[in-house]
């Protein structure tokens, strides 16, 4: 288990593609891992205290990581435990393993993820499990659980996997969705614009677009794109 803690408050954001693979390396090696601090390339050890306890493939991020981006990018296995909040793009493109965030997650959580699990104990911001601008497909497999609230554009262009939000969410949920499930235990705004497939379940209130047909399965659409997505209460 590798323990990483910031040495100071970061004036500008740090871009650190930290994955559990680092936990298998020697502390001295980990310290040399290259990250961006603003527009400068620096070594991880310059910005963070690094220590190791045991050999399991796990990283614990202590302290404030809310200005640290791209944690867990492309990870395939192992675990990352974030003791506080995490910056943007956490878990982007991840294919396996688990990320647990004890406080909040910033925008672009689990973008284009294709496997694994992300658990957020606090709130998540916008664009959870979506596609990067210009790309055709968002999250395709895996699971994201948010125990608090989420922002706008959850599951944009999502084609598979599961996003569960225990609180409320914002507008434009499951836009251009093709598959998978979004489950919201609270309420949200507009859902399913240009949705082609998949299912959006909402416990509270939501706003459906006029391009969805009411059926016994729920609201089916988006008719504009000949979609067969389902939006329903549960």
């Amino acid at each position: 288990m590798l323990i990483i803690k910031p040495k100071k408050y970061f004036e500008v954001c740090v871009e650190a593609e930290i994955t559990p693979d680092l936990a298998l390396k020697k502390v001295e090696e980990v310290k040399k891992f290259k990250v961006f601090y603003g527009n400068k390339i620096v070594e991880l050890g310059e910005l963070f205290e690094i220590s190791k306890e045991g050999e399991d493939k796990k990283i614990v991020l202590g302290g404030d990581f809310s200005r640290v981006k791209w944690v867990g990018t492309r990870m395939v296995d192992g675990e990352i435990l974030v003791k506080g909040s995490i910056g943007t793009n956490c878990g982007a493109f991840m294919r396996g393993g688990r990320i647990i965030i004890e406080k909040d997650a910033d925008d672009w959580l689990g973008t284009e993820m294709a496997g694994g699990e992300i658990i957020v104990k606090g709130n998540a911001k916008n664009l959870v499990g979506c596609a990067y601008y210009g790309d055709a497909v968002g999250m395709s497999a895996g699971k994201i659980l948010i125990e608090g609230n989420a922002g706008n554009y959850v599951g944009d262009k999502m084609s598979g996997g599961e996003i569960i939000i225990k609180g409320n969410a914002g507008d434009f949920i499951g836009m251009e969705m093709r598959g998978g499930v979004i489950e919201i235990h609270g309420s949200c705004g507009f859902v399913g614009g240009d949705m082609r497939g998949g299912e959006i379940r909402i416990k509270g209130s939501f706003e459906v677009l006029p391009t969805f047909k009411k059926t016994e399965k729920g609201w089916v659409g988006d008719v504009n794109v000949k979609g067969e997505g389902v939006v329903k209460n549960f």
Partner: protein
Amino acid sequence: MLWIKNGVVVDPKNRINAEKMDLFVKDGKIVEESKVKKGDCKVIDASGKLVVAGGIDMHAHIAGGKINTGRVMRPEEMRVVRNIAGKFRATVGRVLLTAPAIGYEYAKMGYTMSFEAATPPITSPHTHEELDAIPIIDKGALPVFGNWHLVFKCIEEKNLEKLKSLIAWTIERSKGFGVKIVNPGGVEAWMYGGNVKGLDEQVPGFAVTPREIITWLMRANEELNLPHSIHLHCNNLGIPGNYQTTIESIKLANGLKNEKRQILHVTHVQFNSYAGNSWRDVASGAAEIAKIVNSMDNVTIDMGQAIFGHATAMTGDAPFQFTLHKLIGARWSNKDTEVETGAGIVPIGYLPSNPVHTLQWAIGLELGLLIESDKVVLTTDYPNGGPFTEYPYVMAMLMSKKMREGELKRVHQYVQKATTLPSIETEKTLYEVIHMTRSLPARVMGLDKKGHLGIGADADIAIYDLNPLTTDFSNEFDRVYKAFKVSEFTIKDGDVVAKKGELVKEVFGKTFWVDASKKVDVEAVIPDVKSYFDFYTVQFSNYGVDERWLKKSKRIEVI
């Protein structure tokens, strides 16, 4: 001063075919041996290497509103990092490149000039700003005329003198190079959601037809005797059965002659060579097109070859772009350029498993193989058919039947019955392919100092790691492809700018533009032009580009 020693030179304009010789360069020009002091020369040992003129891309979309909108709407294209800032500028782009990347990638491949093939005159300030951000290569831009209300007015009035004045005024104001025509009349019809379907259909709101637009602009262009002929993107582009419209358009050049060059250049003909009635029975019309082009001595074309992989369709042909968007369901951007023209942009990709894409790929090659090498220029209509960085693929394919056989095995077999490609035995020679990429585009554009290595030519030179005397082009296609991908040396105006695919020096090329304003009474058209400024969003005094704004202006005066 440069001394390029012992190279194997191929220079079709000067009828030099793989001769071992030395070249000398002084003050950016190719000079006689006696004009240099050998001791002061920087020597490049080109033993066993191919020495040719720098490549010329006579039709690409490299600057202005369309490519820039493409960049904006395709952020995914911008994620490929090509160069990190340092001695050279930061560049990104997969197929849609940033402006500096365009200059760098051409130079690394041994190309030294490229033309932006369509700029609305009103947006010429934008086009030139971007051209000025492209390093190394020489550039030029073709303003579009085929859907401009003012052009229609001159034709309706049957006033050739006024049309000539308008052309001369416009290319001077826009610092343009020649007369581009895109889907004549069709883009105007698109302003009302329509298109024109044939040469004799009237343009909505005007008493003119596409046939008249083409012939009047052709006559005006010839009377002005501009360096380049009219440059035509035919009606019905991208529609099955369109090869007949293309043939009819080509015939419009009948009866006219020019000593130095063609009367009509038809561009990216691959997109205009479809037989059949629908996408279900679409087939190649390339053999018919080849027959008519070969039978005429005043028409040239360029291929518009499709390359498998990513591309972005961007043309002034706004109705076609909408059709394409509906056909493939990809993103779409539409442009309405005031009273002058329109445009559209749609991302595409060519897949070897898709029958239509494979057909397009095969038609481009058919045109390149079946048409005489003195009449067909190699292009991909970048980025419509794909990246210009794959020109070496097209060059190698034209020279090797065996390479084509290999490729034909991996593509959709629809091409077996829908095209003649599998049965074509022709293998173009290196001499022919060098002509199609250098001396021919130079002649088509009317540039006598470009595309060759004769005394007095601009010292734009490419040296490749390929010995024509010992290479078997039919069988060693892989090596040929790789050799043309990156030059050993690219020399621009006498400076070595790239070496083995690495940039060495950043220089800035010239922007070539044509000034024919002395040939006509430009004032004759000004009252008409001014009357249209009731409809423009800019004022007359703010229209166009002044010469002093250009980074490096090269004015070509027509007298």
